């Protein structure tokens, strides 16, 4: 056999292997086993006098068609048709060395987060009988740095970015603890809400591997956030069951497990779940369809219908919106939901696809949310001029304006896109650029609101 014939044969075998690899039913070890068989057969045929390419053709023919093969493999390994998130990865590529360490590193980060939550109890601040506000202020400071650390390791972030991340976390810790915030004060609640948000965006910097200016990376972080939330909820549901069973079974033998659950299982479990969810999102990224865009598809029409019905009801009954204490927050949340629906449909959209029915639906959703919010703002301005500014109202109003601005411009861009005047990418870029505004606002609230309002 000549060397040229040899390399030609290798090329043919490689091509065949590529075809086998494309079948989900057959794993790479199966492909290897089959390839070994193919090579044996070719060797035998060439030894009996056939040319390499002839031997290859016959060997492939005798192997059976790939359709037939995958059907048989599927019958034996039907579980493979369900894309599995494998915990122990197949030892396939040499590049797997790092991904093998992925799991231990994740577990380490999760353990650090879980234990960090318990560190204050060494100094007499326990979460279960924490009538004060320590954990309310600091929970995110225990959980999010390990998450950032995980991404720092995974993305091999440079020392300068690590320094910036550390500085931001320290700044957050100072803001949460240096101000004299009274238990039950509005400022405390505001810090408790805005600090996690601010720190989450810091995690975003780690997630992008320091490349936070890139629009694509930012969009990845948006996708990540949505999936992470879904996974956290799933783990939370499982954790809730675990706690219920722990409490129930120990109760049955007359032991009270509630203290253990309250001061260990729940807080440590939550902290670990934050990291595990992040790892799950990363690990299954290429394995399973993202859930957030699917939920978006389901709920965009439903929310649009509800909002339109609400507007019709307002016009019909001529009832003004009764601005109760919590109304502003409720409508803030509504805007957040609408923005989320918009963001996640953007995150999953083929940027080059022409405008379709769904885009019009989205436009209707955004516009009706805008109209409703305008009505709310109209109603609330009167109240604020009447009663003056409090931290709560100011924060809620600020958020409302930020979201309103985002959605108004989004509606404009969406309208342009639906009418075929603008590429969809503009909308995506607008959303990713706008994230800086959220970060700036969250940090402003955390850092300046308490002194601004005399720690009320």
């Amino acid at each position, binding site marked *: 056999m000549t060397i040229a014939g040899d390399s030609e044969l290798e090329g043919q075998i490689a091509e065949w292997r590529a075809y086998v690899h494309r079948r989900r039913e057959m794993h790479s070890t199966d492909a*290897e*086993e089959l390839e*070994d*068989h193919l090579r*044996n057969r070719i060797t035998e045929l060439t030894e009996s006098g056939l040319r390499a390419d002839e031997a290859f053709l016959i060997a492939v023919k*005798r192997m*059976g068609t790939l359709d037939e093969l995958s059907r048989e*493999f599927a019958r*034996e390994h039907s579980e493979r048709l369900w894309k599995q998130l494998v915990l122990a990865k197949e030892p396939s590529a040499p590049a797997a060395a790092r991904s093998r360490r992925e799991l231990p590193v994740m577990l380490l980060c999760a353990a650090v987060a879980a234990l960090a939550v318990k560190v204050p109890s060494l100094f007499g601040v326990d979460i279960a009988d924490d009538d004060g506000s320590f954990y309310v202020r600091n929970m995110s400071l225990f959980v999010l740095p390990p998450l950032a650390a995980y991404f720092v390791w995974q993305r091999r972030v440079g020392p300068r970015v690590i320094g910036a991340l550390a500085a931001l976390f320290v700044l957050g810790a100072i803001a949460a603890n240096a101000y004299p915030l009274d238990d039950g004060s509005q400022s405390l609640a505001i810090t408790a809400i805005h600090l996690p948000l601010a720190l989450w965006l810091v995690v975003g910097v780690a997630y992008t591997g320091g490349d936070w200016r890139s629009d694509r990376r930012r969009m990845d972080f948006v996708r990540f956030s949505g999936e992470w939330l879904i996974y956290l909820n799933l783990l939370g549901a499982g954790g809730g069951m675990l706690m219920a069973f722990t409490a129930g079974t120990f109760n049955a033998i007359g032991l009270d497990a509630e203290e253990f659950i309250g001061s260990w299982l729940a807080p440590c479990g939550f902290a670990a779940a934050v990291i595990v969810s992040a790892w799950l999102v990363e690990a299954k990224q290429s394995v399973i369809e993202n859930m957030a865009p699917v939920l978006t598809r389901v709920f965009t029409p439903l929310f649009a219908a509800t909002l339109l019905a609400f507007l019709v009801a307002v016009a019909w009954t001529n009832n003004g919106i009764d601005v109760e204490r919590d109304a502003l927050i409720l409508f803030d949340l509504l805007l957040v939901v609408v923005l989320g629906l918009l963001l996640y449909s953007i995150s999953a959209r083929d940027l080059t696809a022409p405008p379709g029915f769904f885009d019009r639906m989205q436009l209707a959703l955004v516009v009706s949310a805008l109209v409703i919010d305008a009505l709310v703002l109209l109603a609330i301005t009167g109240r604020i001029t009447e009663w003056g500014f409090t931290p709560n109202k100011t924060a809620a109003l600020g958020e409302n304006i930020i979201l309103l601005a985002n959605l108004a411009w989004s509606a404009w861009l969406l309208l342009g896109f639906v009418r075929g005047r603008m590429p969809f990418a503009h909308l995506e870029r607008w959303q990713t650029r706008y994230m800086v505004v959220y970060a700036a606002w969250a940090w402003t609230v955390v850092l300046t609101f308490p002194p601004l309002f005399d720690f009320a």
Partner: protein
Amino acid sequence: MRITKDLVAASATPLVLGILAEGESYGYAILKQVNELSGGQLEWTDGLLYPLLHRLERLGHVEASWQTPPEGRRRKYYRITEQGLAELAEQRRQWAAVVDALRGVWNSTQAIQPITAPAWEGGR
């Protein structure tokens, strides 16, 4: 002569287990042995041996291990287990019963001689 698909499928498990009962082996060697034992009359599609081996592995009749010779590609070897030997014995009893029954049928209907395949099917 061409043996029908159903018969090939039914005899595959005892054949493979029987071959492995003689010692550890790998896919291609098993297939060659089947070919020799049947005088080339049992024709398998090569690739279909592997799902069968995997099924036997899942059922616990055989164990598999990857072995790498000093130079060369690694290869998956199969070894029969205790349970596989028991299964083989069971299959053997069942096949003996079938063969006995068939022999009775052939003896009582000796008028029917094995018919040689028509010439136009010979080339298949």
